[in-house]
């Protein structure tokens, strides 16, 4: 008995919401990044679930592309975080407001 599609979609929605809450609540850029990773993974799960449902490999290809772009983005984002930390010795996105207004 195959697992119904709704279960996967529900799980994916829950993970996406948790990731979104993480981005909104935390101030450490590393943890915000990790929450965004969780959101990406939730979307990947949705793609794979629909690919399974409609027996179409396009979903898998899309997941592959999302994974690759996410990896590239994490690399650049982390190096920026390292630079900010080197300057300020603090990891707090709320302090990076010198361009405000």
């Amino acid at each position, binding site marked *: 008995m195959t697992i119904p599609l709704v279960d996967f979609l529900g799980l994916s929605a829950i993970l996406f919401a948790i990731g979104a809450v993480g981005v909104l609540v*935390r101030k450490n850029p590393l943890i915000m990044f990790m929450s965004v990773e*969780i959101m990406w993974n939730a979307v990947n799960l949705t793609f794979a679930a629909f690919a399974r449902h409609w027996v179409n490999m*396009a979903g*898998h290809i899309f997941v*592959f592309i999302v994974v690759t772009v996410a990896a590239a983005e*994490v*690399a650049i984002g982390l190096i920026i975080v390292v630079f900010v930390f080197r300057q300020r010795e603090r*990891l707090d996105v709320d302090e990076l407001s010198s361009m405000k207004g």
Partner: protein
Amino acid sequence: MLANVIFWIAAVIAVAMAVTVVAAKRPMHAVVALVANFVMLGVLFLLLHAEFLAIIEVIVYAGAVVVLFLFVVALLLTGVSAPREDEGPKLLAQTPLAIILGAAILCLAGFAVAINLTLGPTPGVPEAFGSITLFGEELFTTYLLPFELTALVLLVAVIGVVFLARERH
């Protein structure tokens, strides 16, 4: 039957680990929870007959991207606790508002699924579905252009990282 049991175990652990990532006081615990989350998602991909995606998830996401996070956390936050963050003042009622917004996103997603629930039963899949041969065929014929563009994105990222991390005098 066995698939259902594995699904529920993997789903519960994935959600628990995601909550740990979001709520952990120490960044190192968040990173370890993230790895566990990704491995559980790999298991879920296997349940969806997406075997190549499961391997990609473990090799690329859990095995490389999170290692990057781990390096940064290990080098920047060498103290065991994280005294330098989450100490400043938060916006007014930030946490409750965020949780309300998260619940709103969940309701939105649930609504989207409910009004579209004319999906019908899940058909069976051919043996080769999700295998690396079928994936390769699709990737290199129908989706060749996105593949090449993704390679270009990676190249730009590598150039960016090498440039940003160069020696400065």
